[in-house]
């Protein structure tokens, strides 16, 4: 322990001669990148939230002038009254910002970057420069998407799912540059996600501290790892589809145009092949974190650690093969509908295992009422949420129970890990 502390001190004493830009802007430090993702996702959350409030205004007071609505240009709201085309833009951009830029960046970009190296005892990500590129392509994607709301003819108007042919043909949707910017932004977003996923997977496989075996990994890292694999399998399909859509919009190809031999449903298959795994890309990191928080807050190891890991894998695999349940009434072959229905129902099984294991973890525990635990329990309640603040349990670790150390990251993981790695693990074994 003393050697480790001495090493840490030496590292601190070393003067960091990187410039401000290298350190905080174009940084390769996973923690800085995590924080950058955090601000980008919070900004997107703000944008998505403001759009949602406008949707709510229209629903609550249709045809009434919206407060501050006069600030909007005449192409969006006439005398403060929202126009129908602007309403469709609101719905489209709200969905886009929330799904792609708020939740996905928050749950994957922020937590995977910040937590994976810390929790595994790695010095940084496997590919720090690729990690930086991942953030900056997400940044470009976000800027393009934001800018698309202010171009002539307005933002994309085909819903966040962008069903073709509505999204592909400007004469049908009434929006041109906005639609194209949507496609371009999603291509950058896909690039960011692929680079990020590659990094998370490589880091988990290669950069674990000695002694951090697979089945000692915290469940939050397991969840982020499986999420990254799922992302790598799903997001490139979306990016590919967005490239096809862009070609359709600006080069006049006919991938989705039945009049010229294309297939309108092709887009739906490609989109949902991404879109459904996306649901699990968003929920799995939250589930992983809830697992760790519930274990910590109950002062017990997680109940059924191995079955939790297999449940994560099961949810991810099933989540990857159920996309057709978004297309039951799309005109797809009804027999396919049956298979997608069965695979969709099956997801209830691993999901139930997770919820029951959380319950099992709390059973006969010593339940704490600190904020992370309150958040985790409310997530347990609602089945979908995530602890927003004070996500790491190290700030609230060891108090009374002699077992606290084993519970602070996951039941199986940290107590036996070596103490030479930074922050999390050292703190844990010190407790």
């Amino acid at each position, binding site marked *: 322990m003393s050697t480790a502390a001495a090493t840490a001190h030496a590292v601190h004493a070393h003067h960091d001669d990187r410039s401000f830009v290298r350190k905080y802007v174009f940084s390769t430090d996973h923690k800085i990148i995590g924080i950058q993702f955090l601000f980008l996702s919070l900004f997107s959350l703000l944008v998505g939230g403001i759009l949602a409030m406008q949707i709510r205004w229209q629903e609550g007071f249709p045809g009434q002038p919206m407060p501050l609505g006069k600030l909007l240009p005449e192409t969006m709201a006439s005398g403060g009254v929202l126009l129908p085309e602007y309403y*469709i833009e609101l719905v489209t951009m709200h969905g886009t910002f929330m799904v792609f830029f708020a939740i996905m960046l928050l749950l994957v970009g922020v937590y995977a970057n910040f937590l994976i190296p810390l929790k595994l005892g790695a010095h940084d990500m496997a590919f720090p420069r690729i990690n930086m590129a991942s953030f900056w392509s997400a940044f470009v994607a976000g800027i393009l998407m934001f800018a698309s709301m202010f171009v002539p003819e307005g933002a994309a108007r085909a819903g966040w799912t962008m069903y073709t042919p*509505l999204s592909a043909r400007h004469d*049908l949707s009434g929006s041109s540059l906005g639609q194209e910017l949507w496609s371009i932004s999603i291509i950058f977003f896909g690039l960011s996600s692929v680079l990020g996923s590659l990094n998370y997977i490589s880091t988990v496989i290669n950069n674990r501290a000695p002694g951090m075996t697979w089945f000692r990994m915290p469940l939050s890292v397991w969840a982020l790892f499986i999420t990254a694999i799922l992302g790598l399998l799903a997001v490139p399909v979306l990016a590919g589809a967005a490239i096809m859509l862009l070609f359709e919009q600006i080069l006049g190809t006919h991938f989705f145009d039945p009049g010229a031999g294309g297939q309108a449903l092709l887009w739906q298959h490609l989109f949902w092949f991404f879109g459904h795994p996306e649901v699990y890309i968003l929920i799995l990191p939250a589930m992983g974190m809830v697992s760790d928080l519930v274990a910590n807050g109950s002062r*017990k190891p997680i109940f*059924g650690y191995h079955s939790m890991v297999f449940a994560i894998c099961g949810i991810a695999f099933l989540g990857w093969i159920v996309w057709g349940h978004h297309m039951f009434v799309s*005109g797809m072959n*009804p027999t396919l509908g049956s298979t997608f*229905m069965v695979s969709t*129902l099956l997801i209830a099984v691993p999901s139930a*295992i997770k919820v029951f294991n959380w319950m099992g973890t709390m059973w006969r525990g010593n339940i704490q009422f600190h904020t992370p635990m309150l958040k985790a329990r409310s997530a347990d309640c609602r089945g979908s949420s995530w602890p927003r603040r004070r996500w790491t349990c190290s700030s609230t670790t060891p108090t009374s129970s002699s077992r606290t150390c084993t519970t602070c990251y996951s039941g199986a993981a940290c107590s036996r890990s070596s103490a030479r790695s930074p922050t999390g693990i050292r703190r844990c074994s010190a407790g």
Partner: protein
Amino acid sequence: MTWWLPPQASTFAAPIDWMFTAILIITGITFVLVEVGLVYFVIAYRNRPGRKAFYTHGNTRAEVIWTAIPAVTMVILGLTSNGLWVKIKGRNSVPANAYPIGVHAKQFEWWFTYPGADGKLGRVSPELIQETVNPTGLDRSDPAAQDDIVIRNQLHVPVGRPVVVMLTSEDVIHSFYVPQFRVRQDAVPGMNIRVWFEATVPGTYEVGCSQLCGMSHYKMRARVFVHTQAEYDAWLQQEAAKAKGASTS
């Protein structure tokens, strides 16, 4: 249990609502049990001075039980649900005596084609579509098309008789949805999709487009009139006479 759902007006409505209610009850009971357990655990095992947690890593038997019960429940639900699905949407589910009606969707209106006296719909072809003159692309050279009647935004169907809707779309994806019939089917350009139902209660309902289809999606709707067979025949004759008058004048 169905008071908060739309009125039931087709043969599909009761079994679908039953399925919905069954799933709601099963998941509702699970939800309440889990919540009660959660609240109980939070109170019973709360942190008090001197309290120590019970140390355990898990219990295989408990894991097996709470894996098996949801699995069995899901298999039963899946089989029941699939039986209903095949009956409603299966490839061979359309009854042989179903009365055909053509439904053509375009931004932002519905065009309905009725088969006239011969009970057969004529051929349609997208190349023949002409604004106002031939909005559905009906091929008038087809003998079956001679007496077909094309009407905008009004769906008339006889009660107690299976009706098969032949869905087409001209531009983007629309969706044919009559909540009271519990029938929903997308109309996809380039595809001819059949969907059937049997209305059980005469009355007036509404077709809403349930797939975002552009700027005026919100006003893309049509009236549905469910008549008795006699009323329906009278209405069809009257429309046929009107159509004839229009074509001769």
